[in-house]
């Protein structure tokens, strides 16, 4: 397989998808490191297609109401709340 050759634009794009701001020096460092790491991941090309075990089963519980966190407990770690609700940034 060809070299994945990550460029700074690609790192910037992925950071954007992941909602992580990066400083310019971080982008530079990650571009180089991602090249090495993705090169190492190329070894996975040699892995044969393998049958996955199908002995998994779903675990269900009865759909009944039960105790949960109170509204106050759920809100206690939020940086800002308003009228019993989380307060987030503007949705533009």
């Amino acid at each position, binding site marked *: 397989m060809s070299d994945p050759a990550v460029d700074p634009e690609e790192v910037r794009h992925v950071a954007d998808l992941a*909602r992580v701001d990066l400083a310019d020096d971080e982008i530079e460092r990650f571009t180089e490191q991602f090249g090495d790491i*993705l090169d190492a991941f190329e070894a996975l090309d040699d892995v044969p297609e393998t049958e996955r075990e199908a002995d998994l089963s779903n*675990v269900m519980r009865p759909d009944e109401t039960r105790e949960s966190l109170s509204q106050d407990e759920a809100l206690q770690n939020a940086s800002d709340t308003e009228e019993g609700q989380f307060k987030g940034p503007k949705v533009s």
Partner: protein
Amino acid sequence: MTEYNGYVTDETIEGAEDGPLAGKTVAVKDNISTEGVRTTCGSAMLSDYVPPYDATVVERLKDAGATIPGKTNMDEFGMGTTTETSAFGPVENPIAEGRVPGGSSGGSAAVVAAGDADLALGSDTGGSIRCPAAFCGVVGIKPTYGLVSRYGLVAYANSLEQIGPIAPTVEDAAELLDIIAGPDEHDATTQEAPEADGSYAAAADGDVDGLSIGVPTELLDGADEEVVETFWDAMADLEAQGASYHEVDLPSVEHAVEAYYVIAMSEASSNLARFDGVRYGQSGGYDGNWNESFANAREEGFGEEVKRRVLLGTYALSAGYHDKYYKKAQDARAWVKQDFDEALDDADVLASPTMPVPPMKRGESLDDPLTMYLADANTTPVNLANLPAISVPAGETDDGLPVGLQLVGPAFGEREIIRAGSALA
């Protein structure tokens, strides 16, 4: 606080007055939720986060009478092999000056090695209990996937991780496993272990007469010479006590560490999406639009290793790359599982050095993430295969650096690895 920075928070939590752990201190890794006591995951993102509930394992510790002396330092969100990526500073190895304690449960292993706690809980996603146990000269058990509840464990890569014990001896570790193991209605991936005689602690009888040990040659190739020598000395010790060994081939493990990192990073990119600074965590402010605000919170709240993994995971799952990385990694995972199952048909347990190298010098891994990832070659296959493993002290290098021996058992075969390990420690 400790001079080697083992605790993030040293608030004491008292358990019940009576119980099998009464009078014992059990330190808890700081990614395991403790009601009313902050739980940071070693991250600035959660530096003020106080869980409104206890993890199931913490409830069980308290019911068993344990005293929790504090929350232990760790690599940020469990992402590291050296406990140097914590936002609360690195942990030093209390028994090997100038060396890392291993990670990511470095604080838990360090407080046990230093005698500042009797026992500790860690979590192991790709070796995070076994590596620090090996580097600090103590015992660590990574249980079979599904034996111990993950309810209240802040998720890094849920398909791989398990909470498990760290202790000075195999018997002590097994006793702690007896307390935390067992199904939990809050974690649908837990299951009842098949019936077996006696407790885990009772299995620590040191009887290895007739034990058949498989040694995967791939896990010795490329390991440090002194580590390999120490490993064979410990094997000779087991042989002298009546065990026998044979070499086995596990060709799949050559690809395990790459598969592990693709899967763990992919799961991390999804799990850590929740940290946007609204419900909890560092706020990104209220100006600009919500995407900018979230990206700002995550730039400030996450350290470099966490960003690296979240970005690589996002990349591996993105359109055009999913089949190349994620799907192939899942093939590798199934292959590793098959290989281990076959090898364990002809052996009671499998043995290898826990880590291919002695504890690294502090600071040397930080600029070279790939080399740090590759140090997880012997531990990550076990998580991919969902199997139980123990790390026990095997001896020391000529420079006095601790070396760990890893024993891997069949699914829910904790008693086998505890029995075998107890012949050494």
